């Protein structure tokens, strides 16, 4: 942990060397998710509600997903750019060091400009918290926190899957983007609006709905069963297969030799 903080401060210092660039990137990240927000805003100014969800409820959902995504992206960015580590032979160096490989990849890159999204998510959350009409009792606050952490777990897991597949393909597979970027993009709306099959897929295969849809129902008071509150915890089990895939990848690793 101390080593990780050390890495973090190095990254912070190096990124602060290019302040204008850093700020512009931050701004860019902010604006790009702001465009997503505008998308929601304009859709709702035309339609008012979607399948019974109101504007501020959807904003709440959007803020939670965006927050989880940006935190996950910020922390596990090393896995997102893992194809570079593989193809330039950097992974050989990682393997000979006396530390866990996963930890090193994790610490190899921390992109703080990604926080632009987090700022956006926080602002929207601050707006949506009071205006969604939810009475914020303790269990509901707990649900909210669980949702964010569950989300970080699922997105991180997906980034690890993405990196693990690089062991087999060398190149990154664009297909995973559907679940990471797509999860962020389409997770703006509760997954149920996409129909039953999509909901099932995002429950049992890629468990995005476990932190987004089910606890959200509890949050807005559509269900009162407290079990719904705890579904984000199941998200952490998603990390297990991701980890095994990673181990499989490492044992399968052949250096590209460059």
């Amino acid at each position, binding site marked *: 942990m101390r080593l990780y903080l050390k890495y973090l401060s190095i990254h912070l210092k190096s990124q602060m060397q*290019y302040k*204008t*660039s850093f*700020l*512009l*990137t931050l*701004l*860019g*990240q902010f*604006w*790009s998710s*702001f*465009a*997503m927000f*505008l*998308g929601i805003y*304009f*859709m709702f*100014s*035309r*339609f*008012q*509600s*979607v*399948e019974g969800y109101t504007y501020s409820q959807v904003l709440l959902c959007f803020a939670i997903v965006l927050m989880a995504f940006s935190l996950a992206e910020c922390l596990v960015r090393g896995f997102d750019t893992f194809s570079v580590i593989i193809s330039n032979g950097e992974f050989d160096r990682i393997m000979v060091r006396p530390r866990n490989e996963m930890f090193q990849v994790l610490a190899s890159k921390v992109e703080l400009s990604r926080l632009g999204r987090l700022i956006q998510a926080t602002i929207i959350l601050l707006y949506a918290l009071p205006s969604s009409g939810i009475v914020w009792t303790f269990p509901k606050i707990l649900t909210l926190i669980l949702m964010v952490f569950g989300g970080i777990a699922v997105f991180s897991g997906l980034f690890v899957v993405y990196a693990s597949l690089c062991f087999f393909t060398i*190149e990154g*597979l*664009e*297909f995973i*983007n*559907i679940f990471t970027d*797509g999860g962020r993009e*389409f997770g703006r*709306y509760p997954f149920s*609006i*996409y*129909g039953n099959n*999509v909901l099932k897929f995002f429950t049992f295969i890629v468990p995005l709905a476990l932190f987004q849809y089910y606890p959200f129902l509890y949050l807005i008071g559509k269900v009162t069963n407290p079990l719904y509150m705890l579904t984000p915890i199941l998200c952490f089990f998603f990390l297990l297969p991701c980890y095994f895939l990673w181990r499989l990848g490492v044992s399968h690793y052949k250096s590209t030799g460059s």
Partner: protein
Amino acid sequence: MKKYLSFFKIRFLNGLQYRTAAYAGVATQFAWGFMSLLMFSAFYKTKPEAFPMEFSQVSSYIWLQQAFLALYMVWFLETDIFLAISNGNIAYELCRPIDLYNMWYAKNLASRFSKAVLRCLPILLIAFFLPRPYGLSLPENTITLLAFLLSMSLGVLVVIGICMLIYIATFYTLSPMGVRIVAISFIDFFSGAVIPLPFLPDKTRIVLQLLPFASMQDIPFRVYCGHITGLDRVIGILLQLFWLVFLITLGKFFMKKALKKIVVQGG
């Protein structure tokens, strides 16, 4: 002209190499289009009368957008142009007896074209066979089709005109990332890549549809699905033509200015 054509050819053939990436892209874009349509259909079910166009038109719009993503999205920029500017390799390019603007333009056109050629057919085919109203419908008549092809080509040329301005802006800032991300996300929204422009409220929409960004993908797609016909269609295409000339003139002007005061950063 001939030398730019050969730049085009080199880039085009080079782009065709990346087939696996293209197939992966096809799958991604197909899933993406599918999810977008499901989202729109949820809105449609909630309040069908608020829909600005017919659902089948929205489907065509979305599928065209996904199929021709490589042609119309600003973020398919050439990284080596940015690199050339920031690491000084641009000096070599300047030694050549060619017009830099035209060469970059040809390069961009070629790589977009090769990406799109590999990606568009499977998406268009599958989308075409999807059940109505979720599938891609054929244009009403041959005139619509011809108008679409014209408008589509103009659209691509406008897109590259805008990309050129982004490259040129890097001359002044030297750090491509920032300008790039800000510009891309602005343009994405204004061009209708986030939600199709007809879905915006009237006042915003009227302003946005006059801006050059609407000339990129919004006009061609609406021509295809028959959302604009007759006189509106002619006006739309003329508007595209206007922006194209404007952007290229602007680009050439700034390029000249930038090259006059260019400082190459060491070697």
